[in-house]
Protein backbone atom coordinates (compact mmCIF):
# COMPACT_ATOMS: atom_id res chain seq x y z
CA UNK A 1 0.00 0.00 0.00
CA UNK A 2 1.42 3.38 -0.97
CA UNK A 3 2.56 5.74 1.78
CA UNK A 4 -0.28 8.25 1.95
CA UNK A 5 2.06 11.13 2.76
CA UNK A 6 4.73 10.61 0.10
CA UNK A 7 4.06 12.05 -3.37
CA UNK A 8 3.45 9.48 -6.14
CA UNK A 9 6.50 8.05 -7.85
CA UNK A 10 7.26 9.06 -11.43
CA UNK A 11 6.34 5.51 -12.43
CA UNK A 12 2.94 5.81 -10.79
CA UNK A 13 2.33 9.22 -12.33
CA UNK A 14 3.06 7.80 -15.78
CA UNK A 15 1.02 4.65 -15.16
CA UNK A 16 -1.97 6.70 -14.01
CA UNK A 17 -1.68 8.81 -17.18
CA UNK A 18 -1.62 5.64 -19.26
CA UNK A 19 -4.82 4.55 -17.51
CA UNK A 20 -6.50 7.83 -18.35
CA UNK A 21 -5.30 7.55 -21.96
CA UNK A 22 -6.50 3.92 -22.30
CA UNK A 23 -3.00 2.86 -23.29
CA UNK A 24 -2.86 -0.22 -21.11
CA UNK A 25 -3.46 -3.66 -22.57
CA UNK A 26 -5.22 -6.60 -20.88
CA UNK A 27 -2.84 -7.81 -18.14
CA UNK A 28 -1.59 -4.34 -17.19
CA UNK A 29 -5.13 -2.97 -17.48
CA UNK A 30 -6.65 -5.56 -15.15
CA UNK A 31 -3.93 -4.95 -12.59
CA UNK A 32 -4.41 -1.19 -12.81
CA UNK A 33 -8.19 -1.43 -12.46
CA UNK A 34 -7.79 -3.59 -9.39
CA UNK A 35 -5.22 -1.24 -7.94
CA UNK A 36 -7.44 1.78 -8.55
CA UNK A 37 -10.13 0.14 -6.43
CA UNK A 38 -7.75 -0.68 -3.58
CA UNK A 39 -5.31 2.22 -3.59
CA UNK A 40 -7.02 5.61 -3.17
CA UNK A 41 -3.79 7.52 -3.88
CA UNK A 42 -3.47 5.78 -7.23
CA UNK A 43 -7.15 6.40 -7.99
CA UNK A 44 -6.63 10.11 -7.27
CA UNK A 45 -3.72 10.17 -9.72
CA UNK A 46 -5.89 8.66 -12.45
CA UNK A 47 -8.64 11.16 -11.67
CA UNK A 48 -6.09 13.99 -11.86
CA UNK A 49 -5.13 12.94 -15.35
CA UNK A 50 -8.72 12.42 -16.45
CA UNK A 51 -9.41 15.95 -15.30
CA UNK A 52 -6.33 17.26 -17.10
CA UNK A 53 -7.19 15.62 -20.44
CA UNK A 54 -10.87 16.51 -20.18
CA UNK A 55 -9.91 20.13 -19.67
CA UNK A 56 -7.68 20.05 -22.74
CA UNK A 57 -10.51 18.53 -24.79
CA UNK A 58 -12.98 21.04 -23.39
CA UNK A 59 -10.86 23.99 -24.46
CA UNK A 60 -9.69 22.70 -27.82
CA UNK A 61 -12.69 20.95 -29.36
CA UNK A 62 -15.49 23.08 -30.73
CA UNK A 63 -19.06 22.10 -29.84
CA UNK A 64 -21.09 20.64 -32.73
CA UNK A 65 -24.87 20.59 -32.69
CA UNK A 66 -26.03 16.97 -33.02
CA UNK A 67 -28.99 16.11 -35.30
CA UNK A 68 -32.45 16.32 -33.73
CA UNK A 69 -33.12 12.60 -34.17
CA UNK A 70 -30.37 11.78 -31.69
CA UNK A 71 -32.04 13.94 -29.04
CA UNK A 72 -35.29 12.17 -29.74
CA UNK A 73 -33.72 8.73 -29.45
CA UNK A 74 -31.92 9.62 -26.23
CA UNK A 75 -35.03 10.97 -24.50
CA UNK A 76 -37.23 8.20 -25.84
CA UNK A 77 -34.77 5.69 -24.51
CA UNK A 78 -34.96 7.10 -21.00
CA UNK A 79 -38.74 7.10 -21.14
CA UNK A 80 -38.73 3.42 -21.93
CA UNK A 81 -39.12 3.30 -25.70
CA UNK A 82 -38.13 0.03 -27.28
CA UNK A 83 -35.72 0.35 -30.17
CA UNK A 84 -33.24 3.02 -29.04
CA UNK A 85 -33.23 1.36 -25.62
CA UNK A 86 -32.21 -1.97 -27.07
CA UNK A 87 -29.18 -0.42 -28.67
CA UNK A 88 -27.71 1.03 -25.56
CA UNK A 89 -29.10 -1.65 -23.32
CA UNK A 90 -26.79 -4.10 -25.06
CA UNK A 91 -23.89 -1.73 -24.52
CA UNK A 92 -24.90 -1.15 -20.93
CA UNK A 93 -25.21 -4.84 -20.11
CA UNK A 94 -21.86 -5.56 -21.68
CA UNK A 95 -20.50 -2.63 -19.74
CA UNK A 96 -22.00 -3.88 -16.51
CA UNK A 97 -20.34 -7.21 -17.17
CA UNK A 98 -17.02 -5.45 -17.27
CA UNK A 99 -17.75 -3.60 -14.05
CA UNK A 100 -18.90 -6.80 -12.37
CA UNK A 101 -15.77 -8.66 -13.41
CA UNK A 102 -13.59 -5.86 -12.17
CA UNK A 103 -15.41 -5.97 -8.84
CA UNK A 104 -14.92 -9.71 -8.58
CA UNK A 105 -18.61 -10.54 -8.97
CA UNK A 106 -19.40 -13.35 -11.38
CA UNK A 107 -21.43 -11.96 -14.21
CA UNK A 108 -24.49 -13.76 -15.50
CA UNK A 109 -26.04 -12.87 -18.82
CA UNK A 110 -29.73 -12.09 -18.70
CA UNK A 111 -30.67 -15.23 -20.60
CA UNK A 112 -28.87 -17.73 -18.40
CA UNK A 113 -28.32 -15.84 -15.20
CA UNK A 114 -29.97 -15.51 -11.86
CA UNK A 115 -33.41 -16.26 -13.24
CA UNK A 116 -34.46 -19.68 -14.45
CA UNK A 117 -33.68 -19.64 -18.15
CA UNK A 118 -36.33 -22.22 -18.97
CA UNK A 119 -39.08 -19.69 -18.39
CA UNK A 120 -39.79 -17.29 -21.24
CA UNK A 121 -40.56 -13.80 -20.05
CA UNK A 122 -42.32 -11.11 -22.03
CA UNK A 123 -40.08 -8.45 -20.58
CA UNK A 124 -36.95 -8.42 -18.44
CA UNK A 125 -35.12 -5.87 -16.37
CA UNK A 126 -31.71 -5.71 -14.79
CA UNK A 127 -31.11 -3.63 -11.68
CA UNK A 128 -27.56 -3.21 -10.61
CA UNK A 129 -26.46 -1.46 -7.44
CA UNK A 130 -22.82 -2.32 -7.93
CA UNK A 131 -21.47 -0.56 -4.88
CA UNK A 132 -23.82 -2.73 -2.82
CA UNK A 133 -22.83 -5.80 -4.82
CA UNK A 134 -26.53 -6.28 -5.42
CA UNK A 135 -27.92 -7.45 -8.74
CA UNK A 136 -31.56 -8.14 -9.34
CA UNK A 137 -33.02 -9.66 -12.45
CA UNK A 138 -36.74 -9.43 -13.08
CA UNK A 139 -38.88 -11.25 -15.59
CA UNK A 140 -42.44 -10.28 -16.33
CA UNK A 141 -45.29 -12.45 -17.53
CA UNK A 142 -47.33 -9.79 -19.29
CA UNK A 143 -50.53 -11.82 -19.27
CA UNK A 144 -50.67 -12.58 -15.55
CA UNK A 145 -48.71 -9.58 -14.30
CA UNK A 146 -46.48 -11.86 -12.27
CA UNK A 147 -42.98 -10.51 -11.85
CA UNK A 148 -40.37 -13.14 -11.05
CA UNK A 149 -37.29 -11.83 -9.33
CA UNK A 150 -33.87 -13.17 -8.50
CA UNK A 151 -31.15 -11.39 -6.61
CA UNK A 152 -27.48 -11.97 -5.97
CA UNK A 153 -26.40 -13.41 -2.64
CA UNK A 154 -25.61 -11.30 0.35
CA UNK A 155 -27.25 -9.09 2.93
CA UNK A 156 -29.63 -6.61 1.42
CA UNK A 157 -29.67 -3.70 3.82
CA UNK A 158 -28.01 -2.46 6.96
CA UNK A 159 -29.52 -2.49 10.44
CA UNK A 160 -32.82 -0.67 10.69
CA UNK A 161 -33.05 -0.43 6.91
CA UNK A 162 -34.83 -2.24 4.12
CA UNK A 163 -34.76 -2.23 0.36
CA UNK A 164 -38.04 -1.61 -1.36
CA UNK A 165 -38.98 -2.47 -4.93
CA UNK A 166 -41.08 -0.07 -7.00
CA UNK A 167 -42.70 -0.24 -10.38
CA UNK A 168 -43.08 2.94 -12.40
CA UNK A 169 -45.35 3.30 -15.39
CA UNK A 170 -44.29 5.77 -18.05
CA UNK A 171 -44.22 9.15 -16.33
CA UNK A 172 -46.24 7.99 -13.35
CA UNK A 173 -45.63 7.78 -9.63
CA UNK A 174 -43.79 4.77 -8.24
CA UNK A 175 -45.97 1.99 -6.83
CA UNK A 176 -44.57 -0.38 -4.24
CA UNK A 177 -44.01 -4.03 -5.09
CA UNK A 178 -42.91 -4.80 -1.56
CA UNK A 179 -39.61 -5.18 0.20
CA UNK A 180 -36.66 -7.11 -1.16
CA UNK A 181 -36.79 -10.27 0.96
CA UNK A 182 -34.06 -12.41 2.49
CA UNK A 183 -34.82 -15.09 -0.09
CA UNK A 184 -32.89 -14.82 -3.33
CA UNK A 185 -35.93 -15.71 -5.47
CA UNK A 186 -39.36 -14.22 -5.04
CA UNK A 187 -42.37 -12.94 -6.94
CA UNK A 188 -44.41 -9.78 -7.03
CA UNK A 189 -47.61 -8.82 -8.75
CA UNK A 190 -47.77 -5.90 -11.14
CA UNK A 191 -51.14 -4.16 -10.78
CA UNK A 192 -53.53 -4.72 -13.73
CA UNK A 193 -53.55 -1.02 -14.63
CA UNK A 194 -49.82 -1.24 -15.32
CA UNK A 195 -49.95 -4.04 -17.83
CA UNK A 196 -49.33 -3.19 -21.44
CA UNK A 197 -47.46 0.08 -20.81
CA UNK A 198 -43.71 0.72 -20.67
CA UNK A 199 -42.54 -0.03 -17.14
CA UNK A 200 -39.42 0.40 -15.16
CA UNK A 201 -38.36 -0.93 -11.77
CA UNK A 202 -36.49 0.83 -9.02
CA UNK A 203 -34.97 -0.08 -5.65
CA UNK A 204 -34.88 2.44 -2.84
CA UNK A 205 -33.41 2.29 0.63
CA UNK A 206 -36.09 2.74 3.27
CA UNK A 207 -36.44 2.38 7.03
CA UNK A 208 -37.08 -1.19 8.23
CA UNK A 209 -40.63 -2.13 7.28
CA UNK A 210 -40.59 0.03 4.18
CA UNK A 211 -41.50 3.57 3.29
CA UNK A 212 -43.98 5.08 5.74
CA UNK A 213 -45.45 7.32 3.05
CA UNK A 214 -46.23 4.98 0.18
CA UNK A 215 -43.63 6.66 -2.00
CA UNK A 216 -39.85 6.27 -2.01
CA UNK A 217 -38.33 8.31 0.80
CA UNK A 218 -34.78 7.09 0.61
CA UNK A 219 -32.11 7.09 -2.10
CA UNK A 220 -32.78 5.21 -5.33
CA UNK A 221 -30.07 2.55 -5.56
CA UNK A 222 -30.83 1.14 -8.97
CA UNK A 223 -33.34 1.38 -11.77
CA UNK A 224 -34.01 -0.80 -14.78
CA UNK A 225 -36.44 -0.71 -17.65
CA UNK A 226 -38.56 -3.76 -18.43
CA UNK A 227 -37.83 -4.53 -22.04
CA UNK A 228 -38.56 -7.42 -24.37
CA UNK A 229 -35.51 -9.70 -24.36
Amino acid at each position, binding site marked *: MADPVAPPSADDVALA*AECALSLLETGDLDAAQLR*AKEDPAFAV*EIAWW*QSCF*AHLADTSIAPVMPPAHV*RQAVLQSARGGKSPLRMWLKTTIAGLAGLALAAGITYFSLSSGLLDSEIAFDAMALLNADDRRLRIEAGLNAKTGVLTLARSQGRVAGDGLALQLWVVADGGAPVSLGLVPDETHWQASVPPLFRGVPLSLAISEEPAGGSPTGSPTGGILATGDLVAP
Partner: protein
Amino acid sequence: MAQERLEDLIKRTAEGDLSAYEALYDASAAKLFGICQHVLSEPEQAEEALAATYGRIWNEARQFQRGPHGPTTWLISMARETAVAQLRGRSASDAGFAGVALSSRPEMPQPSVLAAFSDLPKDRKQAIASAYLKGANYTTLAQDLDVPTETARSWLRRALTALHDRVSNG
Protein backbone atom coordinates in the same frame (compact mmCIF):
# COMPACT_ATOMS: atom_id res chain seq x y z
CA MET B 1 -23.49 26.67 -18.24
CA ALA B 2 -22.41 27.16 -14.64
CA GLN B 3 -20.84 24.12 -13.02
CA GLU B 4 -23.32 24.26 -10.11
CA ARG B 5 -26.27 24.10 -12.47
CA LEU B 6 -24.74 21.18 -14.41
CA GLU B 7 -24.02 19.40 -11.16
CA ASP B 8 -27.62 19.88 -10.04
CA LEU B 9 -28.92 18.49 -13.34
CA ILE B 10 -26.72 15.40 -13.07
CA LYS B 11 -27.84 14.77 -9.50
CA ARG B 12 -31.48 15.10 -10.47
CA THR B 13 -30.89 12.84 -13.46
CA ALA B 14 -29.54 10.25 -11.02
CA GLU B 15 -32.91 10.42 -9.25
CA GLY B 16 -34.70 9.67 -12.51
CA ASP B 17 -35.81 13.25 -13.17
CA LEU B 18 -36.53 13.21 -16.91
CA SER B 19 -36.83 16.97 -17.28
CA ALA B 20 -33.43 17.42 -15.64
CA TYR B 21 -32.00 14.80 -18.02
CA GLU B 22 -33.48 16.66 -20.96
CA ALA B 23 -32.00 19.95 -19.74
CA LEU B 24 -28.67 18.19 -19.20
CA TYR B 25 -28.73 16.92 -22.78
CA ASP B 26 -29.50 20.38 -24.11
CA ALA B 27 -26.72 21.91 -22.04
CA SER B 28 -24.02 19.41 -22.95
CA ALA B 29 -24.81 17.49 -26.14
CA ALA B 30 -23.04 19.87 -28.52
CA LYS B 31 -19.85 19.71 -26.48
CA LEU B 32 -19.98 15.91 -26.25
CA PHE B 33 -20.91 15.51 -29.90
CA GLY B 34 -17.84 17.54 -30.86
CA ILE B 35 -15.77 15.02 -28.95
CA CYS B 36 -17.55 11.98 -30.42
CA GLN B 37 -17.03 13.39 -33.92
CA HIS B 38 -13.36 13.92 -33.19
CA VAL B 39 -12.96 10.28 -32.23
CA LEU B 40 -15.28 8.78 -34.85
CA SER B 41 -15.24 10.70 -38.10
CA GLU B 42 -18.21 8.89 -39.66
CA PRO B 43 -21.43 10.79 -38.82
CA GLU B 44 -23.49 7.67 -38.04
CA GLN B 45 -20.77 6.33 -35.75
CA ALA B 46 -20.47 9.64 -33.92
CA GLU B 47 -24.24 9.81 -33.46
CA GLU B 48 -24.35 6.28 -32.13
CA ALA B 49 -21.57 7.08 -29.68
CA LEU B 50 -23.39 10.19 -28.54
CA ALA B 51 -26.61 8.26 -27.93
CA ALA B 52 -24.68 5.53 -26.11
CA THR B 53 -22.95 8.19 -24.00
CA TYR B 54 -26.23 9.64 -22.82
CA GLY B 55 -27.54 6.15 -22.19
CA ARG B 56 -24.59 5.62 -19.87
CA ILE B 57 -25.10 9.04 -18.29
CA TRP B 58 -28.72 8.13 -17.57
CA ASN B 59 -27.71 4.80 -16.11
CA GLU B 60 -24.62 5.88 -14.22
CA ALA B 61 -25.48 9.39 -13.07
CA ARG B 62 -25.39 8.06 -9.51
CA GLN B 63 -21.65 7.42 -9.96
CA PHE B 64 -21.03 11.11 -10.49
CA GLN B 65 -21.69 12.00 -6.88
CA ARG B 66 -19.46 9.23 -5.60
CA GLY B 67 -16.61 10.25 -7.86
CA PRO B 68 -13.98 12.95 -7.74
CA HIS B 69 -14.81 14.84 -10.89
CA GLY B 70 -16.53 18.10 -11.59
CA PRO B 71 -19.51 17.87 -13.94
CA THR B 72 -17.70 18.93 -17.12
CA THR B 73 -14.85 16.49 -16.56
CA TRP B 74 -17.31 13.71 -15.82
CA LEU B 75 -19.41 14.34 -18.92
CA ILE B 76 -16.41 14.70 -21.22
CA SER B 77 -14.78 11.58 -19.79
CA MET B 78 -17.99 9.61 -20.35
CA ALA B 79 -18.16 10.74 -23.97
CA ARG B 80 -14.50 10.07 -24.62
CA GLU B 81 -14.59 6.60 -23.02
CA THR B 82 -17.72 5.60 -24.93
CA ALA B 83 -16.44 6.88 -28.26
CA VAL B 84 -12.99 5.28 -27.96
CA ALA B 85 -14.53 1.99 -26.86
CA GLN B 86 -16.82 2.07 -29.89
CA LEU B 87 -13.84 2.84 -32.12
CA ARG B 88 -12.07 -0.19 -30.72
CA GLY B 89 -15.18 -2.36 -31.01
CA ARG B 90 -15.43 -2.96 -27.28
CA SER B 91 -17.99 -2.09 -24.65
CA ALA B 92 -17.46 1.18 -22.85
CA SER B 93 -17.02 0.07 -19.28
CA ASP B 94 -14.50 -2.73 -19.96
CA ALA B 95 -11.54 -0.41 -19.93
CA GLY B 96 -12.92 2.34 -17.76
CA PHE B 97 -11.99 3.48 -14.31
CA ALA B 98 -15.42 4.83 -13.49
CA GLY B 99 -17.02 4.00 -10.20
CA VAL B 100 -13.93 4.56 -8.09
CA ALA B 101 -15.22 6.13 -4.90
CA LEU B 102 -13.15 9.09 -3.84
CA SER B 103 -13.98 11.70 -1.28
CA SER B 104 -11.72 14.52 -2.42
CA ARG B 105 -11.32 16.22 -5.75
CA PRO B 106 -7.81 16.19 -7.22
CA GLU B 107 -6.49 19.72 -7.40
CA MET B 108 -6.03 20.94 -10.90
CA PRO B 109 -4.70 24.41 -11.61
CA GLN B 110 -6.42 24.69 -14.98
CA PRO B 111 -4.57 27.62 -16.56
CA SER B 112 -1.35 25.73 -15.85
CA VAL B 113 -2.66 22.72 -17.75
CA LEU B 114 -3.18 24.69 -20.93
CA ALA B 115 0.13 26.51 -20.66
CA ALA B 116 2.08 23.36 -19.85
CA PHE B 117 0.46 21.41 -22.66
CA SER B 118 1.00 24.07 -25.30
CA ASP B 119 4.64 24.33 -24.24
CA LEU B 120 5.19 20.67 -25.08
CA PRO B 121 7.06 19.85 -28.26
CA LYS B 122 4.71 19.16 -31.15
CA ASP B 123 5.34 15.42 -31.36
CA ARG B 124 4.47 14.95 -27.69
CA LYS B 125 1.30 17.01 -28.02
CA GLN B 126 0.28 14.97 -31.02
CA ALA B 127 0.96 11.66 -29.28
CA ILE B 128 -1.11 12.61 -26.24
CA ALA B 129 -3.93 13.95 -28.44
CA SER B 130 -3.83 10.76 -30.52
CA ALA B 131 -4.12 8.57 -27.47
CA TYR B 132 -6.84 10.63 -25.82
CA LEU B 133 -8.95 11.43 -28.85
CA LYS B 134 -8.13 8.85 -31.49
CA GLY B 135 -7.87 5.80 -29.30
CA ALA B 136 -4.31 5.30 -30.49
CA ASN B 137 -2.42 2.55 -28.69
CA TYR B 138 1.34 2.19 -28.36
CA THR B 139 1.58 0.19 -31.58
CA THR B 140 0.02 3.06 -33.53
CA LEU B 141 2.08 5.69 -31.73
CA ALA B 142 5.26 3.70 -32.39
CA GLN B 143 4.38 3.51 -36.08
CA ASP B 144 3.73 7.25 -36.19
CA LEU B 145 7.10 7.91 -34.58
CA ASP B 146 8.85 5.15 -36.54
CA VAL B 147 10.36 3.63 -33.40
CA PRO B 148 9.96 0.30 -31.60
CA THR B 149 6.89 0.05 -29.34
CA GLU B 150 8.89 -0.08 -26.10
CA THR B 151 10.76 3.07 -27.13
CA ALA B 152 7.48 4.86 -27.82
CA ARG B 153 6.26 3.80 -24.41
CA SER B 154 9.24 5.06 -22.42
CA TRP B 155 9.30 8.24 -24.49
CA LEU B 156 5.65 9.00 -23.84
CA ARG B 157 5.89 8.09 -20.14
CA ARG B 158 8.75 10.59 -19.77
CA ALA B 159 6.72 13.26 -21.57
CA LEU B 160 3.74 12.62 -19.31
CA THR B 161 5.85 12.82 -16.16
CA ALA B 162 7.32 16.13 -17.38
CA LEU B 163 3.83 17.47 -18.13
CA HIS B 164 2.67 16.43 -14.68
CA ASP B 165 5.58 18.23 -13.04
CA ARG B 166 5.00 21.40 -15.10
CA VAL B 167 1.31 21.48 -14.19
CA SER B 168 1.92 20.67 -10.52
CA ASN B 169 4.62 23.26 -10.08
CA GLY B 170 2.76 25.61 -12.36
